[in-house]
């Protein structure tokens, strides 16, 4: 028996050694380095790295108005996606009620999530382009020339346009996860409620929503994480412009490091975003709990 245990330990060691070493070097160490670098003035290449205490934190909070503007833009992504979650859930319920073609419609819903995000960001740049853009053309065809705008260069509009591109790309992901959760509800409960005369809305409220509570929590957390990390759509479509009008927290952080070579300050922002994700999620949970208690 003892030899079996030692053989077992050999196997565990052989199996886990490489993955754990890789994880430590490329994930754990960088995460702690971010904390360490956040109290220095490192520029990313020189050997010079001075300890400057919490100066970066002070600068981030009091001397970076564009970072705050960027964070507000993340807020727009967050609320646009949040408003859409109930709609996504209803679409999921609809697609889950098997009807002819529902399988095809499911695949279509998920297609935007699977296709190349950079390619589709360029496609949307053309779609919203002020010259021969398809979106403005739709208004022209409908005789609504008055609605034509410079969608990507109007500081007041650009974030909503980018958020809707983000919706286009990521809604399908939420819907598919909701569908999978709905499918895991035991069929007999749904059938019993049908026999008892419950209509679709009653089933939705009394059975489907409570049964998938965990998944709803997951989606809400995913939304916080996704909205605070919004990056590639503005990066490709507007580079955060005009000015900083469509910058996001992550885009600003990345530019601080790799464009302006201020790795110390950028690390501070990276630390901040980790805390923000946790904080927003906790606040959201508190609000939701107080709501469900009242309901």
């Amino acid at each position: 028996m003892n030899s079996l245990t030692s053989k077992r330990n050999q196997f565990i060691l052989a199996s886990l050694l490489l993955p754990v070493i890789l994880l430590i070097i490329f994930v754990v160490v960088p995460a702690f380095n971010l904390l360490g670098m956040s109290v220095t003035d490192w520029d990313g290449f020189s050997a010079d790295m001075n300890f400057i205490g919490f100066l970066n934190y002070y600068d981030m909070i009091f001397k970076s108005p564009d970072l705050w503007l960027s964070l507000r833009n993340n807020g727009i992504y967050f609320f646009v996606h949040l408003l859409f979650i109930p709609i996504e859930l209803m679409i999921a319920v609809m697609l889950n009620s098997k009807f002819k073609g529902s399988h095809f419609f499911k695949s279509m819903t998920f297609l935007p999530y699977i296709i190349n995000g950079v390619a589709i960001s360029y496609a949307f740049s053309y779609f919203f382009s002020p010259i021969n853009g398809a979106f403005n053309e739709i208004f022209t065809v409908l005789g609504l020339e008055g609605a034509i705008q410079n969608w990507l260069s109007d500081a007041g509009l650009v974030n909503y346009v980018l958020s809707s591109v983000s919706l286009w790309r990521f809604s399908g992901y939420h819907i598919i996860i909701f569908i999978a959760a709905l499918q895991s509800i035991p069929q007999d409960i749904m059938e019993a409620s049908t026999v008892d005369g419950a209509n679709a809305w009653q089933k939705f409220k009394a059975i489907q929503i409570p049964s998938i509570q965990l998944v709803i929590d997951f989606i809400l957390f995913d939304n916080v994480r996704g909205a605070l990390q919004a990056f590639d759509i503005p990066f490709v479509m507007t580079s955060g412009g005009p000015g900083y009008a469509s910058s996001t927290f992550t885009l600003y952080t990345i530019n601080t490091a790799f464009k302006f070579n201020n790795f110390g300050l950028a690390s501070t922002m990276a630390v901040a975003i980790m805390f923000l994700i946790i904080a927003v999620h906790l606040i959201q949970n508190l609000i939701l709990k107080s709501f469900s208690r009242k309901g």
Partner: protein
Amino acid sequence: MTPNITLSYKTKRIIGNILKYLISIGIVCLVLGPILVILFASFKTKGDMVTSSPLLLPALSKITFDNYERVLGNKMLVSAFKNSFFIVLISVFFNVLLGSVTAYCLERFDFKFKKIIFALFIMGMMIPTFVTEIARFKIIQSLGLYNTLGAPIIIYIASDLMQIYIYRQFVAKIPASLDESALVDGCSYFRLFAQIIFPLLAPATATLIIIKSVTIINDMYIPYLYMPNNKLKTLTTFLMDFAGAQQGSWQRLSAAIVIVLIPTVLIYIFFQKYILEGISAGAVKE
């Protein structure tokens, strides 16, 4: 019970069905609309881009394949295909190999430091992706991996950890008695894993290969950051370079977009069953 009620129930169902199809068709239009606009543009000449509606194909006689010829004639496209393929092949191979043994050990055995190792993997999944590169950059550089295909490969292998999560759920479904009887028969742990456990994980492996391939082909940030070298473009960073060079020539860029979209769309059409299963497995069973 009266015929009146049955009728209204029937009408309700019909109205419900009509609504379902209207909404579903609306979704299809929203999804395909922007893609079709690009497809149409890719067949237009420069002049047609101005004169024809962006919402329509050009007249059949005016359709041109010139844009595609230009993109396909670009030498960098071939190396971009090769690089993307190579990165996917190596990264996914190690993701599957290391992910499956790690998940098996963490799910099946109790051992020293298990809790710490487990916590590290959980932490790895929680850390925000883009901003971590600020600290990872120095490590990649000091290992001499900057501007090599090794940089994205090692990052995908080390830090993209969803495979452990998915494999664990599949391992949990395999009865432990199977392991025990094989061991009693004198089977070594390595053979047990390679010949009994790993084959039973095949559905998870299929899902992971597909999802990982798509994610890696589509990734923009890591190749952009670590491989500025012209010879090291992936499909996605090739498109970014191409877009930069084609300022305003949307018909040509559209052809490039279509070409870059094709591989993942093909993968999706042929393997969507695995993709949908894997995505849901990752989220549903907490």
